[in-house]
């Protein structure tokens, strides 16, 4: 079988030192450490006393991770903090060496673990482009050839000969991404960099990533932004506690990831900002969802309150895969006694076009913000029978079918006077 990356049983361990065992990174400690060992050898009776001091713990950041990535595949890597994503990328980029296992990589790799690696504030934009390009693996001739394209992409022509310390942070990031975007690798490894720059530039970056994917290059992308994973990737790997727990489609992985987040601390609940609201549970009733445009959405919502509560406003925000909030709806509960409460939430006439959305849940009273959760759940709306030709057309445009869709009223003015009156 052909592959671009073939990982077999990759594992990585780090050695952790406990408080009573300082790292021997100063000479004195190493010397006194060796003296202590020598002392113990000479005085066998004292061995028990100090033995704990030299103990160290192994921490496995990655365990037995195996996967195959075929040429041209775009694979997202997701997982909670500390799941081993960055370690995996660093091993793939050869910054870290695995403790065991083997990875075979076919093709030129460019890894982009940071925007503007090696930029120096004193150097000009031009100088930094050359150095950063060389660092990312471009030859001098290649940088020279692509120089104009890079400058165009970054939109910094006017400031090329200004030291980058005078750049705005946006310009700095744009320049960094521009160099990276003009790499010509067969395999591109990207770590969470799209969360930078203004919205317009983010779209440009996403567009470039998509273009790289369409050119048949292999892309590996780590992100906490589930939206871009779902939107851009063909496949996804879900890591948790150093293990690869799911290798499936992005939507499956994102669902499972959100489940993992909910099941934090063993209980499937969202944590509130106040302590008298507990065990908040919120989920989408997927099984009740009818296929089709503008079908009602059903959610289940429950919590435990330890005090009698004033009316609570529940706000649901719907975020499209670019992270833009396209719709918001709200409802208010009556006053509630202390105890467990369970509600069904039904959203009719949401007018969301078919696609993936993230639901942001907020709870408010008149006085305080009780809860805020960005990815409370993730919904996917399918349209099987759309009769409206306009909607049909937009849904065929693939990834552009984002946001809401609705009717509007057409009013024709007979005269200027009428128009003024109307407004």
């Amino acid at each position, binding site marked *: 079988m052909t592959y671009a990356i073939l990982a077999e049983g990759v594992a990585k361990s780090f050695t952790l030192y406990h408080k009573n065992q300082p790292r021997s990174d*100063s000479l004195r400690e190493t010397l006194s450490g060796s003296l202590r060992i020598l002392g113990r050898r000479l005085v066998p009776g004292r061995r028990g006393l100090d033995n704990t001091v030299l103990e160290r713990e192994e921490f496995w950041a990655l365990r037995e991770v195996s996967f195959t990535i075929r040429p041209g595949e775009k694979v997202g890597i997701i997982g909670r903090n500390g799941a081993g994503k960055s370690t995996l990328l660093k091993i793939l980029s050869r910054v870290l060496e695995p403790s065991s296992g083997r990875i075979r990589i076919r093709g030129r790799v460019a890894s982009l673990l940071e925007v503007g690696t090696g930029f120096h504030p004193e150097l000009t934009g031009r100088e930094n482009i050359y150095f950063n390009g*060389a660092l990312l693996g471009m030859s001098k001739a290649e940088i020279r050839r692509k120089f104009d394209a890079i400058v165009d992409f970054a939109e910094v022509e006017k400031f090329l000969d200004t030291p980058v310390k005078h750049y705005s942070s946006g310009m700095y990031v744009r320049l960094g991404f521009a160099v990276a975007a003009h790499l010509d690798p067969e395999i591109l490894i990207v770590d969470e960099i799209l969360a930078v720059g203004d919205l317009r530039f983010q779209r440009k970056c996403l567009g470039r990533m998509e273009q790289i994917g369409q050119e048949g290059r292999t892309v590996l992308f780590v992100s906490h932004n589930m939206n871009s994973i779902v939107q851009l990737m063909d496949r996804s790997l879900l890591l948790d506690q150093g293990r690869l727990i799911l290798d499936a489609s992005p939507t499956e992985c994102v669902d499972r990831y959100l489940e993992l987040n909910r099941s934090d601390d063993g209980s499937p609940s969202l944590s509130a900002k106040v302590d008298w609201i507990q065990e908040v549970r919120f989920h989408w009733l997927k099984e009740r969802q009818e296929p089709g445009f503008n079908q009602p959405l059903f959610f289940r919502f429950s919590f435990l309150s330890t005090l009698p509560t004033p009316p609570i406003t529940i706000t649901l925000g719907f975020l499209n895969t670019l992270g833009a909030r396209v719709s918001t709806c709200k409802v208010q509960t009556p006053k509630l006694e202390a105890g467990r409460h369970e509600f069904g939430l039904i959203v009719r006439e949401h007018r969301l076009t078919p696609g993936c959305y993230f639901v942001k849940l907020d709870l408010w009273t008149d006085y305080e913000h009780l809860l805020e959760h960005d990815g409370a759940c993730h919904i996917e709306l399918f349209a099987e029978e759309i009769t409206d030709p306009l909607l049909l057309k937009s849904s065929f445009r693939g990834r552009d079918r984002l946001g809401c869709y609705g009717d509007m009223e057409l009013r024709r003015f007979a005269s200027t006077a009428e128009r003024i009156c109307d407004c």
Partner: protein
Amino acid sequence: MTQPDEVIIESGKSGLHYWRDLWRYRELFYFLAWRDILIRYKQTTIGITWAIIRPLLSILVFTLIFGKLARLSSSGIPYSALVLVGMIPWQFFAGSLNEASLSLANKENIISKIYFPRIIVPISGVVVNLVELGVGLVMLLGFLLWQRTGIEATLAFLPLFLVLAFLLTLGCSIWIAALCVQFKDFRQVVSFALQLGLYISPIAYGTAVIPEDWRAYYFLNPISGIVEGMRWAVFPDHISLPLGGVITSLGITLCLLLSGIAYFRKIEKRLAELL
């Protein structure tokens, strides 16, 4: 598209393609050195002038103290010329070692993000200091022309000693770069050793002042052989070639260089973690 070559990442196997990789990353090496030179002189207002002022001031002070006040022997050549020839390799050596002690830590942001043979970093640090070495040589040439002492045929041997100085500096830099990563306070050791080194090496004085019985030990310091060799190349009529010293120096240099590379490669695998 040509069949892409395959890279195998496996525990303990990173050394397999080391030298091939080093060659492949040679362009990055040029860029790194170029960048470091740019940075060094951009952060100062008078830039490269520093490379002239520093040795000049040192020469002035040493000539006054050791030549005029202490009246040490200069084997019949102008005392300032004696110091100048000593300062050229010493400033290169000391500057490179100082640079080496910080080189890897300063590039931590790059090392933890991008792969390249790490040994490029200390090597490029030495190359950066070649600029000052070059300035020193121009000063020497200017001095010789100005003093009309005449340029001897033995000056042709000067490049050999410079190569030796380069290799010695390279070996020490590689050792120090690795040691400073492993032991954070080795940096203090380096700056202290360099302070002492200035006095136990024949920089501000000639080896003529060293008693005959001690010379053999004195030349165990690899810099002694290089400096005296250079003085011989410039002033063959006044200073004799310390052949034993040069050979000792060569031997020690090769040992330091080879062991340094071996040690660095051992550390290198864990470098991103150690930083």
